[in-house]
């Protein structure tokens, strides 16, 4: 098809606009990276800037050496995230499997039980009272346990399971397999895409989560701070960044942000398709 002059103009304009948009989305983050790699004097003089006047890793060195708190938080976050992902995948998949079995007594009941939690929840304060009442205050498990079971994920997995032909199930049963076996040996391996999606979403959510820490960890337990929460503290409080003449507080703050988002930035572009497919399951189609 021949393109008219109007169409060509539009295309040029479109590409230009979108290029600008790419910059709009990318530059703020690049700004952080650049500032984190700048010498303290430059930061004092010029403020945060994209142009690195004086490359230096001193902000990062400071973060990792002057405070053992930082490295510690990285460890806490890694621990919390891994455990959350593993538990979340298994617990939600198990629930979804059970609730997708026709003829299971209570299938509808348990489906509705979890559906209700999607509509309605107790809220922050009752949740806080329950969690602290269980003695979980100042424990990392307060960050892990409450979020594991999720109606969204259960339904996602269940929909996926329903695409797996029943013949596999029947064949396995004829061979004498138990339910648990069928789940583990047949359904899970076939559900790799959806599991990947859920694992990724859970991992990102868990890594980024900080409100739980704010509620349940008090300042006597800084050693339990997950990274995201520690970064918040660093951004808001210059004491932790050693705002002396040698180290620019801004540089350290930016470095902290970079470290905390690095895993996501590095991993995301490659796993984008898994993130997107999660959104589209359950979306409408023309």
């Amino acid at each position, binding site marked *: 098809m021949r393109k008219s002059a109007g169409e060509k103009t539009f295309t040029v304009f479109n590409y230009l606009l979108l290029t600008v948009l790419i910059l709009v989305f990318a530059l703020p983050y690049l700004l952080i990276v650049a500032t984190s790699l700048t010498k303290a004097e430059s930061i004092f003089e010029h403020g945060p800037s994209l142009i690195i006047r004086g490359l230096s890793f001193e902000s990062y060195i400071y973060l990792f050496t002057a405070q053992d708190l930082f490295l510690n938080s990285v460890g806490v976050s890694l621990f919390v995230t891994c455990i959350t992902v593993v538990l979340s995948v298994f617990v939600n998949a198990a629930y979804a499997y059970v609730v997708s079995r026709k003829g299971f007594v209570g299938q509808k009941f348990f489906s509705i039980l979890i559906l209700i939690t999607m509509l309605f929840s107790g*809220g922050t304060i009752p949740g806080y009272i*329950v969690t602290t009442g269980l003695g979980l205050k100042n424990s990392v498990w307060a960050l892990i346990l409450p979020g594991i079971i999720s109606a969204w994920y259960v339904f996602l997995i269940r929909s996926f399971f329903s695409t797996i032909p029943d013949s596999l199930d029947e064949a396995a049963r004829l061979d004498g397999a138990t339910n648990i076996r069928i789940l583990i040996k047949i359904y899970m391996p076939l559900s790799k895409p959806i599991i990947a999606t859920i694992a990724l979403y859970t991992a990102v959510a868990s890594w980024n989560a900080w409100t739980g820490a704010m509620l349940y960890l008090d300042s006597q337990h800084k050693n339990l701070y997950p990274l995201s929460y520690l970064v918040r503290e660093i951004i808001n409080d210059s004491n932790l960044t050693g705002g002396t003449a040698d180290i620019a507080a801004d540089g350290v703050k930016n470095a902290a942000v970079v470290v905390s988002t690095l895993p996501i930035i590095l991993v995301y572009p490659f796993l984008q398709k898994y993130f997107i497919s999660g959104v*589209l399951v359950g979306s409408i189609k023309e």
Partner: protein
Amino acid sequence: MRENQKNSSAIKKTRRGIVLFIISVVAIFLLSACSAAAADSTSMTMKKDGSGQIHISFDKTLIADKAEAESAESFIAALVDQVDTMSGGTPQNHKLKLKSIDETADSFVAKIDLRRIYNLSGVGDFRFSDAAYYKGDSGDVAMLAGLQDGTGAAFSAINILNGKQIDPSISEGKIAINGIDAADGAQISCADIIENEKYLGKKDNNIFFFRAFDLEYINEIEITFAADIVAYSSEGITLVDKNTVRITPSTIRAKVKDVNNMTNIERDVSCFMGFVIIQPSPNSLLIGGFVVLGLGIGVLIFFAIKKKWFSKLFRTEKSRAAKKEKVSAQNEAATSVNSQNLASDVSTELTVKSEPPTPSGAAAQIPKISGSNFAQKLRRIKRDKSLYLLLLPGLVLLLIFNYTPMFGLILSFKEYDVGRGIFGSEWIGFDNFRTLFRAGGKMGLLFKNTVGLAALRFLVGWPASVILALLLNEVHNKVFKRTIQTASYLPYFLSWITISGILFNFLNDNGIVNRIFGIDHKWFVETDHWWGILTITSVWKGAGWGTIMFLAGLAGINSELYEASSIDGAGKLAQVFHVTLPGLMPVIGISLIMNMGNLVRDDFEQIIALVPTGGEIYSHTEVFGSYIFNAVSDSPRYYGVATAAGLFQSLLSMILVVGSNYIVKKTDNPAFF
């Protein structure tokens, strides 16, 4: 011929779609405006702290002496301004505002509006204290007791602005102040005031102490409160009406030390001293506003459904066909969420339901034990024991972390006492809701902020997503497309903490914005642009991700339609209006309605991460979620009120979501439930 028909019906669809969009926008504005108006009309009483009006009557000759060369009016104006500043007022946010000065034969009456006063200082220690949620605050108890016997805190040495120190606690001229019940004029002791529920006791009343000394140029002060007066002190106060008191000074003997010239004399000093106890009343305007609005929306939706406006708007060829199929098909829907494949331009009949219909009915996935009566059910349970085991971890977590807190919602009707736990705490019925909804309660502000910010987010972000999707759809270079998609999706996965770090770089004192524009705006102190900041960051974070749904919808539009329309001579722009937008209508419709359902939801993480804690900016942007979240670290006494606020928000949100889901279903489109 048919193509022309198709085109014109497509135009009609687009037009209707635009009309619907405009209606939604108007509805949003109405909602926000209503709440804003209600909130603002009570701005005089936003806090429970004696906002209202003051009329101060200045003695003409005496004030002229004080003013010296200046005119009396400008002196008074300057005085009010000075008190305003000393009480924390700013040009954007006055604590006191002089409205007018009337002149009579022997006095100047200054009419002043009060708002948001906690502590009014200046003008000789003229003090209004807020003893909100009075539950036996020891300082105020001491104050009351001291007033009664003319000793103690009320009468200790007072420093005043103009360098005088007044010690009124000498033996002569002591004033003993009791209370007077506003209803029947009976005298009440201060002890009774503290204990009795009618006055302070357990009620949410407020008490205002005022004292001002040596202001001989003030004849009287008249204060109108935005609440009912329950009791007042016995010296020098007369009740004008149920909201107004008039205070006249008494004369006491006191030692006056003038620190400027180090003199120390004993003389008569004029003294305004006492207290007023007020009872805040429900904010009928706000409640009424909600009721009217709710009814209005309900009526509108009812009509729309009855007249099938929504169906007519969104009905497509395919869904008309699908509806016919639905009627004749026998299919037991087992799942609530339909799993769909990524959009392709292959046939649309590939809707995968939980199980395909078979001639013999629904296929069983477990060899069926026939019948479903009780004995057979037991047999099935026995057979499936391992399934119950699998269910257990999820079930336990669900019950503990999701259902138990639901029972905790009962706190909304209780006054939480940590010692007695949730179930042992005292039942107070709707009192918590009363506290929220009354004049000066939080509901007006929270609702205004929550809905306002959500509306802004929608009005800016939603069209941005749609337009971005449309633009992206025109990009044919795969690499470029991938790049822009990745770039725009990424901010969605950054936490608000990260964004606060980014924002810091921009809005800090030496940040990018100040540098580029050469200004020196204190972004984290001034309230001005924060709704804009919140909206922009929200859109930056979410707009890209929001395009996904639209891109999928766009991909589903039959490309033949484009070819047909270009054969008919449609240019690019015409194609957008005649092919793209109509084809996108179902997605747009659902997305619109979903967003409307989200109007009462908030992104409290954004507020808590970005906005400096406490302070003006926070109260300008406080939403339900952030209020409740901060309430956790507050005193447990207020957990009941915060839970009530959360309950209200959840219920409202659920109604909106279920309602919008119902509407979507009515348009023959798949919905959430």
